[in-house]
């Protein structure tokens, strides 16, 4: 039997089987995200699945994976097949682009607002009646205050917290880096235990009753307040904090391999629609959309916020100076031991 005839027959069978398979295929997306976005994306995924069904007729099933932002980025680099990542900070996405080359280096230009559809900031959650009288950053470094942040080596929220503390000290001390370092060293001296992620830190403070103040995501503080019952905790908004911009992007090579490029792109674009922004606001993230922001203005007090570019020259520089192995954070921790 000639090979040509066999190949033609085999190809025909193969195509027929594939065609049958294609009609029965369900679209699956994996969203690899950071710690406190569980509730946000549970709501959002339901809304998007309905939107996509109405628009295309296809059923899309979105799986979620959550953990410390740095840890999640590492997992994607190591082979976790995320179609999209929605992480806590741009540096973690840069790491995926740089080390695994799964997306282009200029990924942040692909969506509005530096691919950050919602923002947040760093605030304080204290116990009922604010027994230690914590009102601003300076109160945190007083002797005997127990601060609960997460570990900046593994958590995005913790890195935002560190930079917020540093930026505040710089402002108070006229840009004196040495004094900022001294302040941050005192800050971490008051930390009794480190969790790997923001959700773990919340558990430590809220459920385990450890420490006097949880320093972390605003959205996580509001959620804790809502879930713990009235009066158990209070939020203290410092006068000055950092504008945290959690980014989102398609992981191009994974999405291409899975055949999910179009739906992954639409999934992230839908975050910018009024519907997506409303869901983010309901889950305590500051929306970008002016109309939605106005509607939820009461939940988000106006603060003086600085950006990482303004004070630290961007994530790459901040990461290298402060969080790389042997960087300032490691030096501070070494000295504090």
């Amino acid at each position, binding site marked *: *039997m000639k*090979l040509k005839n*066999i190949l033609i027959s*085999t190809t025909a069978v193969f195509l027929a089987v594939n065609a049958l398979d294609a009609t029965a295929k369900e679209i699956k997306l994996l969203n690899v995200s950071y710690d406190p976005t569980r509730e946000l994306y549970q709501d959002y995924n339901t809304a998007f699945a309905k939107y996509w069904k109405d628009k295309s007729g296809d059923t899309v099933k979105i799986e979620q994976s959550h953990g410390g932002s740095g840890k999640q980025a590492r997992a994607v680099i190591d082979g976790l097949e995320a179609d999209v990542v929605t992480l806590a900070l741009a540096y973690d996405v840069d790491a995926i682009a740089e080390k695994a080359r799964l997306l282009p280096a200029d990924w942040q230009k692909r969506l509005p607002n530096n691919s950050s559809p919602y923002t947040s900031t760093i605030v304080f959650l204290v116990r009922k009646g604010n027994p230690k009288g914590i009102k601003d950053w300076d109160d945190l470094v007083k002797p005997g205050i127990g601060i609960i942040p997460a570990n900046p080596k593994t958590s995005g929220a913790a890195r935002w917290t560190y930079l917020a503390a540093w930026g505040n000290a710089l402002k108070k001390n006229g840009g004196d880096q040495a004094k900022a370092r001294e302040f941050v060293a005192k800050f971490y001296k008051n930390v009794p*235990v480190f969790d*790997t992620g923001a959700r773990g830190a919340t558990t430590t403070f809220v459920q*385990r*009753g450890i420490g006097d103040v949880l320093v972390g995501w605003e959205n996580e503080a509001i959620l804790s307040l809502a879930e713990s019952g009235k009066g158990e905790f209070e939020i203290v908004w410092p006068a000055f904090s950092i504008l945290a911009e959690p980014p989102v992007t398609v992981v191009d090579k994974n999405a291409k391999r899975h055949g999910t490029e179009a739906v992954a792109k639409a999934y992230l674009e839908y975050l910018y629609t009024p519907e997506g922004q409303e869901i983010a606001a309901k889950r305590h993230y500051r929306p970008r959309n002016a109309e939605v922001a106005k509607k939820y203005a009461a939940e988000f007090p106006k603060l003086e916020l600085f950006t990482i570019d303004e004070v630290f020259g961007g994530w790459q520089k901040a990461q290298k100076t402060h969080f790389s192995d042997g960087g300032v954070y490691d030096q501070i921790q070494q000295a504090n031991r």
Partner: protein
Amino acid sequence: MKNLLKMTVAVVIGAQLGLSGALAQNQELDVKALLKRIEELEQKVKVQDRKRELGDEAAAEKARTASTVSIGPGGLQVQSADSNFVMRVRGGLQADGRFFASDSVANDTFLMRRVRPILEGTVFGKFDYRLMADFASGVTQTTANNGSILDAYINARLLPGFQIQAGKFKEPVGLERLQSWRNLLFVERGFPTQLVPNRDTGVMLHGGFWNNALYYQAGVFNGTADGGSSDFDANDGDKDFAGRLFVQPFKQTGVEALRGLGFGVAGTIGDHAGTPRTYVSDGAQRFFTYLTGTGVQPNVVGNGNTWRVTPQGYYYWGPFGVSGEYVISSQELRQAGGGAGAGSRAKFENIAWQVAGSYFLTGENNSFEPVSPRKSFNLANGDWGAWEITGRVGALDVDNAAFPIFANPAQSATRASSWGVGVNWHLNRNVKLQFNYVNTDFEGGDANPAISQPEHLFLTRAQFAF
């Protein structure tokens, strides 16, 4: 005096009142300090507890995400935490003894029949691979086949019913050929295996339904002579198509007595050139050879269409098992050399069949797959492993039309028929001892001392496979 007394009492009372006030104040301070101390200690305990909790979580996470290494009867295995990546190191050897009870030109000998290291596994959850080499006695290389490389393939498990396998592996034809070398009833496979392909290079679609109650295999291969292997098409550009359909109709039912029944049909079709294979006895004595030579001597080669068809089946129930297959191998040949019949072309149909059965005296459930002893051999505990008795009859019938132009009737037999009995002692899952007696009668080839009389053969095997 009275006034002095009053004053004294007043001073004493006043002093006492002042003292008790100071005392109360001090006590209150002590309680506050104590409460503060308790609170601090409570925080310390909570912090220690949380640190322990985080340590446990980290350890659990590490265990969940860590690769595992295990070793057991199935070999050495390394597996990623999500099971998507697996690598197994396996292998085995068969140390045989071959002893002729009758006069024979062949020597009694010990030999290493198989020495096979195996590396196999899975990547990305659905892609299996297998590399198996053989360094045994008599493994030789030809222009078409690197004899040392037996299996070298990848298999993509796209769906349970739709898998693609590519590389070098067994063609899906002969029943006993498809049975693993570690699980053979007899030391040597029977006659039907000599008429079907061994390992060939190609690509195959295959898959099973209803827990493999229905299994299909269909592939395109280089094409190889009866019993031969190939990893390069040295003789022609034509390809063989091979297919097999096997059903176990009661596998998924509650009819216990019939669940081990399976039957099917397989075959190949294609055009072949090149030298046809010879046929041998269990004692490795050639009993049929097509004429081969150079120059003016006759030389037989393949000359076109070759097809094979083989109905096959087995039945296992409790300790009893029986299997059988029947093979017709048709091939067009040409006497391409000189001498008598030069240029003659003809089409021959050679036939082989066998029925083989076994019974586990120790009660194990018989199977086409490897059988594990109920109790591994342990002299101290009085455990003797599994004991299996075996029997087999079969024959290979060469088309009479092959004589005398294509084969020499004085040197080659037109038929070989044999019967054999044996005992298999499975000491454990890895170690098996086999003892066979096989009697083979030949028709024809009277001038060939190897087959001019029946072959009475004792075969022994010590097998270690993991």
